[in-house]
């Protein structure tokens, strides 16, 4: 049986990562911006696991676990910031938060 080459995993990872980056640029709502970063982190996980499968190692899966843990911490802190921004300023669109600009 022919195994799946590394190129296929890398293609899926690159496409998902580009979608995540594009989502962080183009989204207006703060929560959906955070969701797009989660998508980009998952794309990196796919690259790690695919390279692991190709190389026959297990180190990339350990790093994928670390990335999952850090993404959980990032979601907690980021959503806390979103809630406090909404409570203090009553906005949740990214172009209305200009406190540090002017």
């Amino acid at each position, binding site marked *: *049986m022919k195994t*799946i080459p*590394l*190129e*296929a*995993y*890398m293609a*899926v990872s*690159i*496409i*998902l990562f*580009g*979608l*995540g*980056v*594009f*989502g962080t640029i*183009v*989204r*207006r*709502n703060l*929560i*959906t911006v955070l*969701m*797009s970063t*989660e*998508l980009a982190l*998952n794309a990196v996980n*796919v690259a790690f696991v695919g390279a692991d*499968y*190709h*190389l*026959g*190692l*297990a*180190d990339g*899966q*350990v790093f*994928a*676990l*670390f990335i*999952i*843990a850090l*993404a*959980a*911490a*990032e*979601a*907690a*802190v980021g*959503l*806390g910031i*979103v*809630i*406090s921004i909404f*409570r*203090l300023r009553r906005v*949740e*669109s990214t172009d209305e938060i200009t406190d540090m600009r*002017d």
Partner: protein
Amino acid sequence: MIQWSAFLLFSLLAIASGMGVVLLPNPVYVILSLLSALVAVAGIFFVAGAELVGALQLLIYAVAVTVFYVFVLTAVPWEKALKKDSHFRVEGVLSFPILLLLYFEMLIVFLLGVSVSPKGKIRELSKQIGNTEVIGGILFSKYFLVFELVSLVLLIGMIGAVVIGRKEAQTYEDHTP
């Protein structure tokens, strides 16, 4: 053959759900589409033989983090956000060539780095004793310090989320013009 079909199914589902995350207007549809993408990525992990990472992806991401996002979506009233446009359309059109450039650059970097020689020294061991034991052995011997540091980062993130999200005794005055 069945491996290829499962991989194609999960990867196409992941890419379609990722496009849904970027393109759909309503935040509830976006969180559902993100959930679908996470489950599809977990399927890709299972196809690649990473059972532990796939199971933890399902447990942590697809359950805990997604439910957390849904809680925040219900806590924040977003009727005002629904009235406005959900995307920066001009910026999206302007940054789309940069996205294509990013794709091109990553393809070039990957084609230059594709000559990595496969080592495969843990594959035999992984066939003998299973994926979870191999990851546990590496995690608690080679990466033990990193493991402890990640637990510290999680603790600090929890404290930071409590401190940031707590209700203030007095709200700060708005001095912006």
